[in-house]
């Protein structure tokens, strides 16, 4: 029968003591070093200037692999040959203090400044850049040999043989158009003149890395204890998913213009909601407002002097899904759908959203007369012309998305009301989304996405919605299937694959898409951006008329900025601003 028993008292007590001790011990080490004093901030009594801001947790700080981290590299850890000016419209001297271009516009020579040095005191040399670019362009490499992320090289730079070397068709790096002609002299040879080359050099992929450090620590070079960089700041501490601390680089050539004593970056994990409570609670001085938080701050009189907007930072779009149903292969149908999207309604739903009438942001395109108004009557007419009067006989459309977006619900509603076209929103998991949007669907429709708008004409034509992409989107469904098979064919050598793909595009891309390519190419071969713009505007017009991507809205990025933060130039680029030049004054 059940026997009452007692636990030995002493062992219970001993267990409790051990547990408490273990807990206390682990509590000491589980937190970050925590040597930063969170009370020192903007307007604090302490003289130290600490900027406290936020960023998505970087998966890596390697600028050669696409991740959130490459933008922190550019914000102030590394410095490229040239840097962007305050608005992002042109470049200023960086590690190079002078440069010249050959008359035909294809050879660029950069002279490094004498006092450019790494944070460990080594001089920055042209060979360092060369070594870095070889690492960047080595196929599947990034030095460590085991990275899996996407390579960050920007094809639009047009460096001779660079894409070919990356693709594996050229195997000797000496054939790539980058050369260190002297210790302080770096020469680039381009395939053709490129008006976007200088701005393109400010992309993180073109930042220099310190070869000796990377060779010694192929993987751990991004740890604070191994860190060597040439920018105004160096990495001091990195507690993943929590916080990153940067301190000034004492060996930087322009320390005079580096005012901050510390940059404290709160890191947000992927999926973690970014709540402005951290700003209200005086934990950060500068953060982006995301999503619905705009309702509490933008247009709130209490915060008018604390909100700064980067206008039209993102463009949302609907892109054509490939489908076995050919109904959307008729451009009139696509135009009709675009003309009746209900953009005005979407723009009226929340502050900071504007109607996108062209794939080129309004601040670039408006003065060139780009863009088209919505026009229900014309939409109905076009649909009737295509044989679907009042939507009769029109198949159901699908709008594929990975997140709920109001413009999709509005489109569904407006199409039904004005065109008699039914559509459903298909909101799927991210992995499903990436697979479905490029596969051939039974249901015709569009997928929803967004890009960061580009602040200059070259990128607006050659980077986002670029010629190759437009040609690919104009391929008929069955050719697209073949095209993807070629892309996935691992038996083909890279050069052969590239030329087969080119042949398919040449043979099957729509006339309009090819016209866009031709105009873009014409513009890109101009010696400077000004001369190129005329061609780019024409190209943009042709591209808008393809209706392969339907522009929907332009969305402002709003930042909460604590009064006292000075010298902050927010730009439309993904890195948003440089830490250099920012200072914090007492109120």
């Amino acid at each position, binding site marked *: 029968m059940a026997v009452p028993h007692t636990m030995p008292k002493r062992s219970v007590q001993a267990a409790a003591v051990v547990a408490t001790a273990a807990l206390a011990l682990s509590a000491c080490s589980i937190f970050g070093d925590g040597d930063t004093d969170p009370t020192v901030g903007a307007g604090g009594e302490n003289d130290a200037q600490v900027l406290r801001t936020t960023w998505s947790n970087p998966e890596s700080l390697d600028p050669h692999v696409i991740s959130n981290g490459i933008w922190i590299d550019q914000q102030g850890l590394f410095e490229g040959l040239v840097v962007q000016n305050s608005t992002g419209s042109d470049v200023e001297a960086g590690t190079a203090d002078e440069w010249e271009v050959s008359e035909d516009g294809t050879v660029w020579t950069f002279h490094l400044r004498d006092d450019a040095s790494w944070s460990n005191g080594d001089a920055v040399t042209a060979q360092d850049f060369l070594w870095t670019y070889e690492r960047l362009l080595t196929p599947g490499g990034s030095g460590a040999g085991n990275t899996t992320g996407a390579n960050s090289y920007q094809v639009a730079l047009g460096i001779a043989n660079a894409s070919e070397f990356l693709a594996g068709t050229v195997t000797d790096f000496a054939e790539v158009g980058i050369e260190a002609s002297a210790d302080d002299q770096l020469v680039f040879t381009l395939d053709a003149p490129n008006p976007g080359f200088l701005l393109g050099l400010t992309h993180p992929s073109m930042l220099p890395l310190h070869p000796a450090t990377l060779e010694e620590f192929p993987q751990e070079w991004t740890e604070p204890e191994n860190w060597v960089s040439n920018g105004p700041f160096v990495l001091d501490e990195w507690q993943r998913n929590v916080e990153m601390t940067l301190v000034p680089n004492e060996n930087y050539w322009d320390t005079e213009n580096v005012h901050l004593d510390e940059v404290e970056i709160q890191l947000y994990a992927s*999926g973690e*909601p970014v709540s*402005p*409570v951290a700003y209200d609670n005086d934990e950060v001085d500068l953060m982006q407002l995301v*999503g*619905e*938080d705009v*309702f*509490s701050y933008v247009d709130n009189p209490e915060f008018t002097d604390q909100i700064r907007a980067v206008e039209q930072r993102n463009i949302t779009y609907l892109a054509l899904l490939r489908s076995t149903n050919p109904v959307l292969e008729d451009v009139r149908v696509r135009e009709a759908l675009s003309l009746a999207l209900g953009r005005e*309604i979407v723009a*009226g*739903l*929340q502050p900071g959203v504007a109607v996108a009438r062209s794939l080129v942001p309004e601040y670039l395109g408006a003065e060139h007369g780009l863009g088209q108004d919505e026009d229900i009557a014309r939409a109905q007419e076009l649909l009737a012309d295509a044989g679907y009067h009042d939507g009769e006989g029109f198949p159901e459309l699908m709008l594929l998305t*990975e*997140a*709920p977006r*109001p413009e999709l*619900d*509005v489109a569904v*509603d407006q199409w039904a009301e004005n065109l008699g076209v039914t559509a459903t*929103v*298909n*909101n*799927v*998991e991210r*992995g*499903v989304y990436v697979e479905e949007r490029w596969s051939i669907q039974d249901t015709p429709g569009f997928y929803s996405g967004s890009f960061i708008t580009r602040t200059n004409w070259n990128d607006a034509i050659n980077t986002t919605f670029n010629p190759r992409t437009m040609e690919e989107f104009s391929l008929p469904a069955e050719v697209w299937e073949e095209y993807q098979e070629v892309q996935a064919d691992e038996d083909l050598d890279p050069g052969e694959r590239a030329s087969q793909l080119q042949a398919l595009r040449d043979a099957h891309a729509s006339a309009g898409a090819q016209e866009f390519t031709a105009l873009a190419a014409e513009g890109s071969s101009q010696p400077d951006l000004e001369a190129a713009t005329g061609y780019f505007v024409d190209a943009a017009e042709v591209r808008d008329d393809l209706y392969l991507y339907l522009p929907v809205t332009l969305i402002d990025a709003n930042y909460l900025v604590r009064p006292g933060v000075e010298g902050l130039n927010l730009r439309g680029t993904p890195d948003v601003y440089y830490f250099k030049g920012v200072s914090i004054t007492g109120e």
Partner: protein
Amino acid sequence: MTETDRIDPAERPGPPDSSEPAATAGAAQAQSQFRRAWTRFRRNKLALASLVILAALIVVAMIAPLIAPYGFEEPDYENTLAGPGTAGHLLGTDLLGRDLLSRLIYSLRTSFLVGFGAELAALLVAIVIGLMAGYRGGRAEQLLMAVTDVMFAFPTYLFAVLMVAVLGRSVGAVILAIAIASWVNMARLTRAQTLTLMQRDFVEAARAMGAPGVTIAVRYVLPNAVGPLLVAVSFGIPAAITAEAGLALLGLGVQPPTPSLGGMIQDGISYVTSYPNMLVWPAVMLAVVLLAFTWLGDGIRDAFDTTGTRR
């Protein structure tokens, strides 16, 4: 999905059922058990009130199209993000001007569908496997043990996430994902009940009279195991509703625009500083549903409990 809900009822140690009346037919035994349970249940005011509330909510959910003032995806661009009490929109509207009251009513429908659907699916599988494992032993028992080991070691939540990625976000897929993650506990419970019941006199009597195994299992064992299963189900349904809410927070719940309580909470949480009513309504509704199920479950458990633990 709450991380605390995985306590296996079958593992809860408790005194074995001791009070054993004389041998009667199993069916009669079960029937009288029900009658006694109902008498006891009726005396529990809290449980009774919960039952009434849940029944009312279920009716509301079933006739949603009749009583909801608007369709759940019907926009009103003139009245977006309206506060509670706006003319025509009692509880206010969302970003697209969709009526929150209507969406709340429809979301009850989805959440009940998920809750009952997932539990029912889990129950069916659990009963078959649990009965076989308990009655027959052998292969079925080994299989159940093996699956239990694996499921207990598999983070349920990861399982649901991957299942939804594989199956998609339709109501059916979400139900399936949750059911697969939750049937094991119930199967174990069925098995445990079966093992206990097998030793009862009426089962042994039936066996002695040469009744076939299936008959014994279905006619004598199962009806008498209903009590504990009913308790498990009444706790399982709110768990499934919570699980859907958890998936919704990850962006993996039932696909919008079909509203679910979890989906509405996910929407509302991002408006918490600006339009808190968008969070308050679904959160309160979820809490009411979960509470009612808990009290109902308590009531059922006490009603079927023969050891007198009830208050």
